[in-house]
């Protein structure tokens, strides 16, 4: 009896264990929260933005943020060079970023998964050709590739999404193929084949479920990367058309006034940092949860 009581004190219960893991991973919770805020503002932009993002008022152009001398709470983050409300434009800007990130990842992941499955499953010459092309694209500095293709194709949201969708696919091809090869090596695919399971069944029942974890983790990081690169393209004037409120376009405009009105460039940049911080924390957490093998490096 006495020993049981002591056991209770010294051995942590499963519940305590879970609490401890959650506490240790509080960074993941912060990530979910940050990303949630961005997602919320993108979806409900018209309801939460105090002004229309395109509403110009040259009389109040380049008004300082509210907490500085000469600012007011009508425009909490001040206004840009055309007197447009910074906060509203940042809220609407999240729509461009998330759209590009989401669809870009969707395309590159689908494409990469199919090609990776084929390469890993069929093997042989098919594998060599697919991987050769994938590695070829990985050899050109990524940003250079994106900038040049964007310049050739011209400014539009669809173009930007397609560019990221295609140029990121090689990465997903590599990961999918690696996983397929790893899973094929492990015994159970072999045993499934030996009892006569068809390839389609093997792929859907054995390979795809194992792919979800690693792909989802990479997708999070890649989405964050695309939001980053979209803003970069916008900064060079190569992303969505100039009228669209996007964080990159805002930065490009802010650059002209960096000396006397630094907030015009500062806030959209902070929005990018905020979003990618959320997604990176989320990605680290997903990696911990979905892939215990990689836990040590987290």
């Amino acid at each position, binding site marked *: 009896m006495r020993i049981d009581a002591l056991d209770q004190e010294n051995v942590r219960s499963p519940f305590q264990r879970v609490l401890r893991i959650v506490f240790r991973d509080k960074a993941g919770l912060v990530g979910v929260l940050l990303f949630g805020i961005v997602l919320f503002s993108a979806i409900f932009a018209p309801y939460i933005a105090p002004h229309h993002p395109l509403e110009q008022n040259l009389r109040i152009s380049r008004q300082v943020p509210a907490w500085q001398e000469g600012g007011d709470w009508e425009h909490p983050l001040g206004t840009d060079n055309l007197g447009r409300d910074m906060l509203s434009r940042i809220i609407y800007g999240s729509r461009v970023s998330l759209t590009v990130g989401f669809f870009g990842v969707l395309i590159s992941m689908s494409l990469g998964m199919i090609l990776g499955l084929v390469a890993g499953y069929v093997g042989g010459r098919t594998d060599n050709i697919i991987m050769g092309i994938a590695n070829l694209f990985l050899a050109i500095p990524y940003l250079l590739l994106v900038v040049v293709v964007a310049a050739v194709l011209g400014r539009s949201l669809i173009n930007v999404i397609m560019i990221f969708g295609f140029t990121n696919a090689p990465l997903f091809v590599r990961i999918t193929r690696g996983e397929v090869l790893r899973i094929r090596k492990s015994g159970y695919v072999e045993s499934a084949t030996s009892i006569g399971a068809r390839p389609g069944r093997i792929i859907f029942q054995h390979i795809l479920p194992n792919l979800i974890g690693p792909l989802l983790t990479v997708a999070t990081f890649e989405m964050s990367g695309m939001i980053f690169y979209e803003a970069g393209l916008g900064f060079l004037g190569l992303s969505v058309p100039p009228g669209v409120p996007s964080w990159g376009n805002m930065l490009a405009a802010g650059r002209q006034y960096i000396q006397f009105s630094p907030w015009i460039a500062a806030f959209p940049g902070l929005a990018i*940092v905020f979003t990618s911080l959320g997604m990176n924390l989320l990605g680290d957490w997903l990696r911990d949860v979905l892939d215990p093998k990689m836990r040590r490096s987290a």
Partner: protein
Amino acid sequence: MQRYLFSRLIQSALLMVGVLVITFFMVRLTGDPARVMTPRDASPERVEAMREAMGFNDPLIIQFTRYMGGAARGNFGQSLHYRAPAMSLVMQRVPATIELTLAAMGFALFFAIPLGVFGGSRPGSIWDTLARGFGLLGQTVPNFWLALMLIVVFAVDLGWFPSFGRSGPMSIVLPAVALGFFPLGQFVRLVRSATLEVRGEDYIRTAYSKGIEERAVLGRHVFRNVSITLVSIVGVQFGYMLGGSIYIESIFSWPGIGRMINEAVQARDFPLVQAIAVFSAGFVVVLNLLTDVAYALIDPRIRYED
């Protein structure tokens, strides 16, 4: 080892051929390269003149042979904007970019190695917190925004460094920091996790059992093994910086390749863009070869392989 390097050399040559193919088709993505290479408001006559001048009316196979043949002789055509051989224009800009990337790499490694090694060898310490913080910041702060903020604080407000140009040692500080910040984060993450792994190895315990003090164990035993992992990513980061220099060189008016890309793209000077793309890819390919050699220099297990 030699056989391995030789096969890598062949691979690299094939890769460069692939890059030439990509750059050839890159400008023909829309189907009408003459339209791409002329201003948006150009008259139909001007577009037609461009088509004629660039030989875009010839069959694709002729154009392709001409391009590959020129490339083999190092001829990437004339820059539309400068009206001079494209590749020699690129070469003029190379020193400035090399200077900037080396400075940025130096900055990144100088801070990342101690941060990563100390952070990884003392989990939970202030060093570890700093290492994790920089690892995360490096990935989340866009370099073009960082560059602007550095200008606001250190050039406009404090006036410590010039905000643009390439004149004297002070002028390289801000661009190097802005360009090196992302690699810094990557290095810190990698060095930290590699250190965490290496410090648990048996041979590290052996070193301690010999009475070697922590500082020497970290320097002589831990870091040397971590550097194998580090080498694998240094080359990759040089490649990244070549891309990142597009922003940084444009913002700081640094007369290198990055700024040239931006200018060429804005001026729709695509022969020049092609030349830059081929050069950059070649640069990355050479870096990868150097990485392989560096592996062999550090790791005797590779060096003595047949």
